[in-house]
Structures are given as C-alpha cells and as structure tokens.
C-alpha cells in the first residue's frame, strides 16, 4: 500500500533521468538529412545581380569538393558565419557556391556588396523550390558536396569553429592529397 504512494515519485524519476540524458547528450536541432550520400538534385538558377555567373547542377560535380552555402539577406545567423566563409574563400582552399534562399534580388546584391562576397557563383532560389529539393530546413545551411556531386554532409545553422575543424577542413585536405 505504501509503495503505491511512491509511484508518482518513481515515475518522475524516470522522466527526469531521460530529460537529463536529453539535455546532456542529445541535440533536437540535429536533424539528419535524408539526402546525405545521395546525388545533388537537378537545378539551374540565375545569379544574384552583379554577383558571379549562375549556378547549376554541373558546377557541384566539378571533380573536387565544394561547399554549397544557403544564405539570405534577411537571415541574421548568416552574418555570424559570414566571416568564416570569407576567410575560407580568401585562402582559396575550397570553392564556395551561394544558394540565395527566398530573397529579393536587390536586397541580396546589397547584402553581398556591404558584407563581402565569398562565393564564386551564386544562384537565386526565389520561390525556394531548389531549397526544398535539397531538404533545406532553415537558413543558413551548408552542404559539403563530393567531387561527383553527391552530398557528403550538411551543416545546419551557422558554421562553428568545431564544424570547420572536424567536418570541413579534413575533407578539403583529404581531397587535395
């Protein structure tokens, strides 16, 4: 009989244990992309006015590792990773393509003019259709594309120092050797 009265606290203990585990070991934002290790979807987009030639599927199959960065002028988090991208492109280690997601052409051009342009090519995904095919879930996102155009990995949210060191740089160096 006395044990019955302890049922609530025991139930809570289980819930608390799981939540502690979730808090320390899980990240709900990390949604695995269905598309990782699959070929890039077909697309062809016009460039952001005055910023490089347009972007299409053939470009991400250029025989080397490239980055496809999803950005928008209305995206605050994009500013956070922007210096990282500028640094990467200046070093010339990797070619970065910009997928301008659901943006206004003028706003995107102004944004690139103001903050700098790390991209060798840009494509304007005005209605977000290409983004959907890539499984874009939010902005920014960065796809690491293999030499044959398969999606090797996807980074959700701004690229962190850790992402750079563990996910991007090793792969770029790997492809050089």
């Amino acid at each position, binding site marked *: 009989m006395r044990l019955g009265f302890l049922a609530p606290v025991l139930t809570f203990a289980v819930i608390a244990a799981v939540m502690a585990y*979730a808090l320390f070991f899980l990240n709900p934002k990390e949604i695995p992309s269905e598309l990782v290790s699959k070929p890039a979807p077909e697309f062809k987009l016009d460039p952001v006015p005055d910023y490089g030639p347009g972007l299409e599927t053939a470009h991400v199959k250029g025989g080397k590792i490239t980055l496809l960065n999803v950005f928008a002028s209305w995206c605050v988090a994009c500013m956070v990773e922007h210096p990282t991208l500028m640094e990467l492109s200046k070093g010339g280690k990797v070619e970065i393509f910009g997928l301008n997601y659901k943006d206004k052409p003028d706003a995107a051009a102004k944004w690139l003019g103001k903050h700098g342009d790390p991209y060798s090519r840009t494509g304007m995904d005005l209605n977000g259709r290409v983004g959907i095919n890539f499984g874009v879930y939010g902005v920014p996102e960065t796809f690491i594309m293999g030499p044959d155009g398969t999606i090797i990995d996807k980074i959700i949210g701004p690229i962190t120092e850790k992402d750079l060191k563990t996910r991007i740089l090793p792969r770029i160096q790997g492809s050089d050797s």
Partner: protein
Amino acid sequence: MTAEIGQFSLVLALFVALLQGIVPLVGAYRQNASLMNFASSASLVQFLATTVAFIALTVAYVSSDFSVLNVVKNSHSLKPMLYKISGVWGNHEGSLLLWVWILALFGFAVAAFGRNLPGSLKARVLAIQGLIGVGFLLFVLFTSNPFERIDPAPFDGKGLNPLLQDPGLAFHPPFLYLGYVGLSITFSFAIAALIEGKVDPAWARWVRPWTLAAWGFLTIGIALGSWWAYYELGWGGWWFWDPVENASFMPWLVATALLHSAIVVEKRDTLKNWTILLAIIAFSFSLLGTFLVRSGVLNSVHAFATDPARGVFILGFLIVVIGGSLLLYGLRAPAMKGGGLFAPISREGALVLNNLLLSTATATVLLGTLYPIFLDAVSGAKVSVGPPFFNSTFLPLAIPLVIAIAVGPLLPWKRGDLKGALSRLKLAAFSALVIMGISWWLAEEAPILAYAGMALFAWLLVGSLVEWADRIKLFRIPLAKSWSRLKNLPRSAHGMTLAHIGVAMVVLGITASEAWQSERLGVMRPGESVTVGGYEFRFDGAEELKGPNYDYLQGSFTVFKDGDEVVQLTPEQRVYTTPPMETTEAAIWPMLSADLYAVVGEEDGKGGFATRIYHKPFISWIWIGSIVMFIGGAFSLSDRRFRVGAARKKKAMPVAQSPVAGV
C-alpha cells in the same frame, strides 16, 4: 542607475525569500507566534523589492536605455509603445522577472487576506512560497540577469521578434504566468498540509479559489495563444499540438481536475490524498513547461533562445521541487485519513470519473510530448509526434468526458440514481438527435465524428440548461418565485453552468470548423473572383505600403453574399527591418456563423498573387466559449463563501440552506 536599482532589489528579494523560507518553518515547528508572523512581513518586503525590480526594467525599456543588454537584444527605439512595454516580458530574462513578481504578489495576497487561516498553516504556506521564490531568484540572478549592462552602448536595439509584435501575444504570457504561478499557491498549500499531516474542509475552501483563479487565467492565456496562432501564422490553424502548446495545456487539464476534486474535499471530506497529489502535479507541469521551453531539449517554434547552463539549472530545480514534493507525498500521504464513503453512482463518483478522464488525457499529452525525447534517447531515431497521435488518443477521452459533464451535476452526493438523472436529460438527448438531423440535412456530408461532435454540443448545452432550470424550478412555479430562487442560488452554481456551457461552445466551434471548413488556395489576378463557402471573394489587387517599422504588401478583397457586399478584407504581408523577417497578417471577418479568412502572398511575376481563402463555420465559438468558461470561473470565485472575511460577516442565515454544489 535604474538597472542597478533593479539588480539591487533582486538581490534583496533573494535574501528576504531565503529568510521567508526558513524562519516561519522553524516557527511553525516550535509553535512560536512571532517567528511565524515573520512570514507575512517577509512576503510584503519581497513583493515590494520585486516590484521595484520590475519597474526598473520597464523604465529601461520605455526610455530605450541601450546600455542594458536585454533592452538592446529585444527592443528598438522606433517600436510602438505597446511593444516596448510588452517587450519587457517578451524575452527569457524579462519573462522570468515577471514570473518572480507574480509569485511575490500572490504570496503577499495570501499573507494579506489569510487572516482567518490557522497560524501554522499560513506560516508554512508562505515559507514554501518563499523557497520557490529562492529557486527562481537564483535562476534569474545567476543565469538570466535582465539588468546586465553593455559597454559601449549601441545607438539602437535589435528589435523584438516581429511575430511577437502583436496585441494578442503581448498579453498571452502574463495570463499564462498568472495561471502557472497561481498553481504555486495550491502547491504550497498541499506541501504545508503534508507537513502538518492534516487536510480539513477549511483547507479545501482555501485551495479552491486559488485553483479557480489560476484555471481562469490559464484558460484566457491558452485562448489568446491559439487566437494569435489563428490570425498571425496565416494557415487558419489554431492548435498544433506543439510541445510548447502542450506545456501550457497539461497544467490546464490538471487544474481542471483539481478544481473538481477540491469540491469533494470541501463538501464530503474525502479524496484528500488525491487532491494533494493533483495540486503537486499541477504546479509540476507548470515547472516542466518552463523547462521544456527554455532548456533546448525540445525543438519548437515557440522556444526561447536556449542556453545549456539554464537547462541544467532548471532540471536541478525540477528534481528538487517535483522529486522532493512527490517523495514527501509518498512518505506522508499514507498517514492521511480518508473521509465519508460514497457509492460509485453519485456526485462524488461522477467527479472521480471526471478526474480519471482528465488525468488520463494529461498522461497521453505528456506521452506524446516526451515520446520523441524518449525514442531519441533509447534508439537515436528522430521522430515528431503530430496531430494524428493526439487526435486519436485525446478524442476518445474527451467524448465520454463531455457526455458525463451533463450527467454529473444531476446526481446527488453519496448515492445517486442514474436512471433518474438520465430521464431528466431526455430533452438534451432529443436536442442532440435534432441537431444531428439538422446538420445532416443542411451541411455537406462529413465524417461521422462531425455529427457526434454536434450531438455532444447540443447534449451538453441543453443538459446544463436543464440542470440550471431545475434548480430554480423554472416554469414549475410562478416566474417571480423562480426569479427569487435564482437570486438566492450561490454564485458558484451559476459559475458551473456557465463554464459547462462554455465547454459546449468550444465543442461546437472545434467540430463545425474542422468538419465543414472550405478553402481555396491559388494564384489570383486583380478582378478575379472565387466562391468559397457560399461567399464570393473578388480580388481587387495589392499594393506596397509603409508601416511604422515595416514595409508591407496589402491585398484587397471585396466579399459578396448573394450579390450584396458583405465586407472588404485587407490582408497584409509584412517585411520587418529590425530584425529582418516576414510575417503574415491574415484578414479575418468574424461572424457568429462563420469566419471569412483571407491571406495574400508573393507576386508570381505575371501580375497574379498567391492567395489563401478560408470559410470556417462557427470557429469564433472556440474563443467565445473560452471567455464564457473564464466568466464562469470568475462567477464561482465571487461566491460569498470565498470572499474575504465571509465567515465573520455571515448573517443568521445558515449556509447549509442551499444543498447545491458549485463548479
């Protein structure tokens, strides 16, 4: 200076709360009156200190003091005044400050109005209130300080999330917090009762008004939130079973159960252990909601910016408060004596059934909310539990509950007569059949559940009215006599009828809008017309305009019914600059019989615009019903038995004159 004054007041409040949490407990243990009385003075000081802190932050927002980090992050000098003020609680730090302030306000209210409470019970209640305050003040000061300065101060702020710049959402959090924190009082009473080792009807008379008030505020808070989702998100939905919505819904369900079980404690002196457990669980769900929203454990559109340090603190706090109180319950509850016995078919039995259904419903919502975390922890699979799960588990519990609401009030205490009660509900059953027939005849074909929902609405509405008419013997005695019976009926009786009718209205709104909604999504060119739900919508075009702190595209529709103009609808698509973000402002023409709902979207480049048009029958009744439920609660709360000092002002008239129960 203001920020430093605020900061200092919070530290002061922390020390006072610490003393308030310890001294009266010692006093109550030693039966020392002066130590026990310290609780009241401490709660006054705590209330004043937190008030000063809250005013200090409000001043910083209103004067756009950009040397305060919190103001920089969440405000902007161009923001309208309403949102400068609502910005105070529109963010993590400020909302916690609001929480702490309401906590101190309610503690002070117990101290001020609780003169007729037994001294040791009052001291213990206030002490527990003080300890909860310590937890929250530590949390604010160490992980979420709203008064942090920034140097150098920027020229302007980053602005409030535009989705939150909305009158509905400006008042949604304060109401929810009033509800959550109101439940902290019933929690403190439950813990104090466990420490004292006794629960008497006087205890229930104190717990019930606080539960009623908390429940009423939660009702309004949840209704405001769903109303906001309805017109701001632009998809015509109003409830998404999102984890954060569930986090506010679960305390409401438990508070509803507590509201009813406290009646049994008060009238029949039984179900005490269960009521105490519900009081603990109700507040636990309030805390759990806070944890889920702020820790980053669950992903939700409503979540605050999260910080792992905060998550760890809140989880620790949850374990101490919930784990500690449930453990205390497990150890002390078995010693409590039960009260009067009752047959399964009786008012008590009906209220037990109500409690069983409500707590099972809460359990299913909890399961659906936490299941993704459990599965992720066990197998690493990522899933989201959506409306199909909740609809298929929640509805089978809600349907019998609604059927029983009409029956319960007709059963007498101790031993009832189900046949007699049902025979008094003949009229309700007849109306249920009639309305099923009418909706089958008039409306388009719909799933069987839709007819069941309409029948439930009529059953509950007519059933509640029959019970109310029975009490005043309407049409059976002269009207003048009925009128005098009506005036003598306790307010809680009217409150119950009103609240139950409110539930019926919500059932109508949900059923009709889900079953018979018509919609049309597509590109429209200026001059084009479509007919939705019997109304003709003519699209007159769209133009770019400038608002106070945003640019917007305004579409214009003229709506006709049988050739006569009904209304002009002007939905907007706004683009805010600080921070950059798009929001949808749906144009809604609410009528009692249906809402007309229009949204305008992007241009397709060929002169057409993306549009969404909905016709939603009876959807307003969801919110009208919620308001009626709130009014019912308020009526009940104004019952003379709960009024301050009612016991002293009592006249010669015996209270037992009215054998009826309240809500």
